[in-house]
Every structure is written in C-alpha cells, then in structure tokens.
C-alpha cells in the first residue's frame, strides 16, 4: 500500500470515567479528530490487559492507544498506576518483537480535556502513518516453496523407501 493511501487502523482503549468522557466532550464541542481510531470503552485503563494490545496488533491494527485518568485521579484510587507499569513492561517487550515504540501510546486525559484527547489521537495517527502499515497477520507465513517441499517428501518416500520384489 502506498503511503498516500495508507489509513492507519488504530484501536483505542478509553476509560469510562475520564478519557471516554473526554472523547464525548470532544464530540459535543465539535472538536475534530482523525476518524482512524476505533474506540473501546473500558471501566478503567487498569482493565487493559497487555493481551488486549497484543491481540489488536496481531489482528491487523497498526497502532493502539490506551487512555485513562491522570495519575492520582483514578476513579478506582490507584489502578492507573498499574496501567503505567504494565504499559512500560509491554513496551519493552514490543520493542524486542520489532514493533516501533510509537505504535502504542499511553495518554492521560481527564473528562475536561476533550481538546487534549483529540490532539493525542491525531498525533498517534500521524506517527503511525509515518511508520507505515504494521501488517502483522501473515508475518509467519512461509514462502511458496513450502507446499512443493511437502509434496517432494511424499514422492521420495514412494520411490526410495519401497522395497522392490
């Protein structure tokens, strides 16, 4: 896909109490942001298991946003600190797997920060657009020689392993 026609697919996990409301606010205040993000509302950013992010990337997302309340302002007291730790742990692993750090971003946006959330989404989309498609599904496909190699084995067994009377 050429860079000009590439539209990044972004999955956004937004917490119910702050960031999702920020997205709502952006909507009612008519603040425009890139339509590339598919928002999933979770009760808390602490609910975002690293496997959610891995699953999104493995199924074709080009980037992921995790957004929650500012540290110290979590509706569930301190769960977003766990988000912060998980995020850094996950990022270290993703980098070792050859996934650029900019593809997964953590944003703190309170219910009053519609503008901030919109600009963070735009930034993530532009960052990922620069990186190009991730295209993870198919990363493990073998090349076309595989089927021929398999057929050759069966053929050889028939020819070479048969005891002639």
């Amino acid at each position, binding site marked *: 896909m050429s860079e000009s026609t590439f539209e990044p697919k972004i999955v956004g996990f937004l917490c119910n109490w702050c960031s999702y409301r920020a997205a709502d606010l952006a909507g009612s205040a008519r603040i425009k942001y890139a339509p590339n993000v598919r928002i999933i509302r979770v009760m808390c950013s602490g609910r975002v*298991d*690293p*496997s959610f992010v*891995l*699953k999104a*990337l*493995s199924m074709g997302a080009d980037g992921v946003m995790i957004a929650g309340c500012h*540290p110290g302002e979590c509706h569930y007291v*301190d769960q977003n*600190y*766990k988000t*912060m*730790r*998980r995020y*850094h*742990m*996950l990022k*270290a*692993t993703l*980098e*070792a*797997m*050859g*996934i*650029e750090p900019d593809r997964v971003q953590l944003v703190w946006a309170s219910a009053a920060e519609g503008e901030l959330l919109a600009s963070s989404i735009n930034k993530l989309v532009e960052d990922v657009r620069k990186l190009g498609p*991730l*295209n*993870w599904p198919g*990363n*493990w496909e*073998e*090349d076309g*020689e*595989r089927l021929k*190699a*398999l057929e*050759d*084995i*069966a053929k*050889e*067994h028939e020819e070479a*392993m*048969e005891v002639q009377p």
Partner: protein
Amino acid sequence: MSDNNNKKTEAAPAKAKGKLAVYWAASCGGCEIAILGIDDKILNVAEAFDIVLWPCATDGKVRDVEKMADGEIDVCLFNGGIRTSEQEYMAQLLRKKSKVLVAFGSCAHEGCIPGLGNLNDRRQIFDTVYKEGSATFPENPEDVRPQAETEVPEGTLHLPMFYNTLKTLDQTVKVDYYLPGCPPEADKIWAAIVAILEGKLPAPGSVIGSNTTVCDECKRTRTEKKIKKFYRTWQIKPDPEQCLLEQGLPCWGIATRAGCGALCPQVNSPCIGCHGANDGVEDYGARLMSALASVIDSDDPEEIQQIIADGFPDTVGTFYRFSLAKSLLRRKNQAAPAEMAENASVK
C-alpha cells in the same frame, strides 16, 4: 479404544492390542527420556500397545505408517515443534493415521526453547550456524548452506525445507490433547496413559493437567508483593521459606499451570513457566507481564522503566521462554527496521 480399532481396521491384531506411535520433531529429546522416566511401567505400555513408530527407541518405518489405514494408530505422542517441511509432513501423516494425537511436552504445546528461534528468521539462523563459526561448522570459507534441492550426477537430492517460523503442533494440524511440561513429569505421563487406556479422557482439545497455578502448590510463605528491584538467580541467595517473587526473583508460578508440585521453588529455584498458561489465557507472556507489573513498587514512570530495564534485559526470552510460538504475536516482526533487529537479537 482397542475395540474400536478391531471394528475399523481389518489388519488389526487378533488380541485387540492398541497401536502407539511416538514422534520427535523440533525438540531436545528430553521428552523421549521423560517417557522412559515412567520406569518399569514402560513394560505395561508395551503390553497394552504395539509400538508402530518410535524412531528414538524402536525400529519402525515411516513407509509402514504411510501404508496404514487412516485412524489405525490409537495414540500418537508427538513431541517437538514444527520447524522443517519433514516435521510438518510427519505431523500431517501421524494426524491422519492416529485416532488420538497428543501434543506431548512444551515444544509441541507452545514451541518452547526452539520457538525462541522466532526472534530470528532462517537467514539469521543459518548465518549463525554456517557463517559465524559455530561448534558444528567452525570453518566454512565457501559459505556452503543447506539447499532444499541439490543436483548431483545421480539425480536430485532433497533436504527438508527449513522454515522461517517455528509453529506449534496445533498451528499445523488438529490436536486432541496437550500434555504440558518441559518435559512432562513421569507421574503425569503415566496418568495420561492410564486415562487413554481406560478411555477416561477429558473433553477433546483440553490440556491434561491441573487448572490452577504453581503458587497454589508452593508451600512458601506469601505476604505482600512489592518489588523495587528484580534479581537474577545468581545475584542473591534466597530465603528458603519466603515467596521467591517477594524476594525479587522473577518466579513465574503466578501465571503458570500447576501439576509439577512446584518442583523448582521447592529447591530454591524460581519457576520458569514450562507448563504454560491455564485454560482461558490467550497469551502467557501478557498474563505474566500484567501480574508482574502490578507488583512493581513505584509510581514514577522513569523509575518504573529503570526497574524493568535492569531486571529484564531480555524481555521476550523472559516472559515467553516457553511460549513465543504460541503467543498472539508468534514471532518477531519480519519487517522490523534494521536498528531494532540489531537490538533485539541480543540474547
């Protein structure tokens, strides 16, 4: 099971003895030894089954298996991941010929250590072995590499194709049961064989074993987990009573399927996670990262990053030691930017 065998295949022996196959693909061979670990009960196995193929221990021929009717083998214990076309061919063949196919041990189940090869591709692995002077090929000035096809005066010679990505057995063919562990413990192997003989197997597709974590079987004292610094095993001498993770040793009992009786923590060595995840967990490493990150004792992003960087110089090898091939991402990005490839190949 053996009754079925009689009805289905005319060629079955009159005594209604079952047929057993054991195969070894991309794995170290420890699983083969583990089967012999059931000691003299191996004779009971030989009593109950005709061993039709077990290249490591008996003289069976692939060609004979090829000539069998479909489903003629009652049980196949398959250890090892799928790295070459020959292994894939054998997996397909044994799947077709077996009523029950068991992914035996961590390699067939989750890819295990050979699966960590998924951090590299074929070219990088061949470079290491044939170019950079390995023990196998200390010198190779002409840079000779294995080829799938080689022309010689007598005709064409074939070698199995070496894949870029190691796959688990169930990413290749349908698997009926999994026996986890690196290798599976002898008593669990025997229990599985008895279950097979008595026809008391769980629902197809299940992992034969417990569905709780190693922590549940561990007798160490647990209080509160708050970790400021992670240690490598050689850096501290752990207290024999207290939870190893609480002492800062990365012990994976928190996310690992029980069944081993917490063998490693019992001898002051952290659990390394060879039994893989419990039912319902899609990605072992993610579960581990999630649990581990939540007990890091810091709320400062920079300190958190430092604790992680100091404690886990090889993140993938640490969190996915046994399960990279089975994980959601399966392998490293083949199109990773060059500078990232350099960094990540540091083991």
